[in-house]
């Protein structure tokens, strides 16, 4: 039966995440953005909040519910975190983007070996290295190579735009074992921090999400054990490109949820600004126009959220959701840009008010949501290809 009401457990998870956003993120948001640094206390507090206490209670409640909706839980929490600060939310300790390929392609032994340490109470991060200076969405041209030498894989290549790349304990790295195979030659490898030959390059300076760490990684004869290849439970037949793409079906709704969260923050702040700061002498016709624009954007915000929920719900139901995941990400990304641009246009930031500085920051944060995890164009390509499976759309 069609239903849009959250369960008690989902509401509890949302409230917990919102509290974290209000208490831990908003107070340091502008400072972290300015300095491009995150205080150690934030990591420690996040560790406490997400691996024990209230979070454990919420998770417990979630587990007890008749039908678990893990992906839905995630997107609901992600929206709240991004409402707090999207850059900080990417830096919360945990396996992050390394988790989906390990969970979908790792053997039980590999899952325990690579994800087990995240439960030891200390600070750990994971990262995913796919993008290279020459390749983005078209991974067939990947230049990073992996060659088997005795009991070790030897990795050589150059990756960049890696979130948490310099602080990650493990980096799931995509590399080709045979360039002549194109996409089919691509495999995921787990590279632990400190492996000789894994070199951290520059940390990018960005227009937005400045507190989020974006690193360059260089692999120079980087040797890892043979069984660090995530070979898939079926012996490697489905690993590689499909693993990378399968990961995206799970993460695109998450990115959509982040976009919804920032968009909601900007929308709320603009509504508050009109109510609290717009002078009484402001022409009422113009005020009315602004209110109507915001009303419409508010409707689109709800549509974006429902697209995200639906894609996550499908993932929970194990219904193939590539098309819907891309829809959620494309719609939310575009809307985020629209809402933050409107917020900037209405409130004219630049003055020394925290609200306006935040609006300016969200506007800068927004643009990348139309780009990472597949650009707006790639999302449309994915949607169209799923709509027309019988037609080759190059």
């Amino acid at each position, binding site marked *: 039966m069609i239903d849009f009401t*959250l369960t008690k457990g989902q509401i509890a998870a949302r409230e917990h995440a919102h509290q974290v956003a209000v208490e831990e993120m908003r107070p340091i948001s502008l400072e972290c953005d300015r300095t491009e640094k995150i205080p150690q206390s934030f990591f420690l507090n996040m560790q406490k909040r997400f691996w024990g206490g209230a979070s454990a209670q919420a998770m417990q409640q979630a587990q007890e519910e008749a039908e678990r909706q893990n992906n839905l839980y995630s997107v609901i929490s992600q929206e709240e975190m991004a409402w707090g600060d999207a850059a900080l939310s990417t830096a919360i300790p945990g396996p992050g983007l390394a988790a989906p390929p390990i969970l979908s392609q790792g053997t039980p032994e590999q899952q325990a070996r690579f994800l087990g340490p995240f439960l030891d109470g200390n600070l750990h991060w994971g990262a995913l290295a796919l993008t290279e200076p020459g390749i983005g969405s078209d991974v067939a041209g990947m230049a990073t190579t992996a060659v088997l030498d005795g009991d070790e894989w030897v990795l050589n290549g150059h990756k960049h735009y890696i979130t948490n790349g310099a602080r990650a304990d493990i980096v799931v790295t995509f590399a080709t074992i045979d360039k002549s195979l194109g996409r089919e030659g691509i495999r995921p490898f787990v590279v632990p921090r400190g492996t000789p030959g894994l070199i951290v390059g520059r940390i990018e300076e960005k227009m937005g999400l400045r507190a989020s760490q974006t690193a360059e990684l260089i692999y120079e004869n980087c040797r890892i054990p043979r069984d660090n290849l995530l070979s898939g439970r079926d012996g490697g037949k489905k690993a590689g490109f499909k693993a990378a793409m399968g990961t995206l079906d799970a993460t695109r709704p998450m990115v959509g949820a982040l976009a919804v969260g920032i968009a909601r923050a900007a929308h709320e702040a603009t509504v508050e600004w009109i109510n609290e700061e717009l002078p009484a002498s402001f022409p009422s016709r113009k005020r009315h126009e602004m209110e109507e624009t915001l009303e*419409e954007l508010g409707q689109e915000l709800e549509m974006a959220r429902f*697209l995200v929920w639906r894609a996550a719900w499908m993932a929970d139901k194990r219904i193939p959701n590539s098309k819907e995941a891309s*829809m959620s990400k494309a719609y939310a990304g575009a809307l985020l840009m629209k809402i933050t641009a409107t917020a900037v246009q209405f409130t004219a930031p630049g003055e020394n008010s925290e609200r306006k500085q935040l609006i300016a920051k969200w506007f800068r944060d927004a643009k990348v949501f139309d780009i990472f995890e597949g650009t707006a164009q790639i999302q*449309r390509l994915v949607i169209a290809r799923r709509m027309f499976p019988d037609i080759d*759309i190059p």
Partner: protein
Amino acid sequence: MPNFAPTEEQEEVRELARSLASEHLRPYGREAERAANVPAELLRTLASTGLTTPFPEEFGGSGPIEAVTYTLIAEELGFGDGAIAMHVLGSLMGPLTVMLAGSEQQQRAYLPPFCDAQGGYLRHGSLAFAERTGGYTLGEISATVCMDRSTPSGDTSWIVNGTKRDVIHGAASSPRVILARLDGQPGPHGLCALVVPDETPGLRITHDDNKLGLIAAPSASYTLEEARLPADSLLGEPGHPGVVRAATLYQLLRAGVACGMARAGLEYAADYARQRIAFGRPIVSYQGIAFMFAEMAMKLDAARLLLWRAATSWDKGTEVATLAREAEAAHYQALKIAKSATIDTIQILGGAGFMQDHPAEMWMRNAAAME
């Protein structure tokens, strides 16, 4: 718990509506437009399924209406033909408003004829919603109704002032229901619904001629100047929440039809773009066209989700202010995608889209006429 799948029962009803839409509505779209009416035979076929008698069983209906189910049905009918869908659903809105807002006595008076297996399907009710602005938001309703106790006989009566437009079946309907504000009171609680008899002093009805679209759903406009209605013409009591439920139900059904119109355009264009070859390839294989489809599908899904949410609120009996806001949003967004998708359909068909051999141009006019 969030869930985005209709129930099995709803899927069955949807399937039924879909087959009716493609076998009976779609083929008659042009004919109905030329006749500015819907063939009686088609109405009989629809009525025989029970889809057009959503009234309590005690009056002979097929069971009370559920918004989610009827939103799904409305989309399928709109997918078949938007104008025929509006003809059928517009006709139901009169008795449905009586059902939702009227007293038991009023229900007994107006509902049974619509459930009559012999001729009920040919009856038309009407609900007058839009006014001078043409918009379908509760805030745009400004016709006023006041009580008048000064009649010579000592009876109370209602005095109505205002205008109504685009009333489907408005020229010939019973019950002819209008929405108005009691003493001009704003907000959802100020709304009331009244039945307007044919021979009402102060009522002027103008048949809408030369319409742009929705021609198969004949409509009329009203001017009410000190129009005097009998005491029992007010449905239920003033401020009855059923009035808002009827108004929002109309918004939801219209939104459902609009989603169906968008889907019809999208699918028609998709079939065309698969087959049409340009520069040696089907045109849909070009990203310029493929991206248009991705955009249409994404926005249609988004609008439909917003509509489903409002429909679940209707079924749960959510308080009227929230319900009104959600239904209004759903209606606005559904009409927006209906317009843009039908325009894009013509664009994808190219020159063929402009020709009346294809239904695309009629669909674009129909979508534009929804506003």
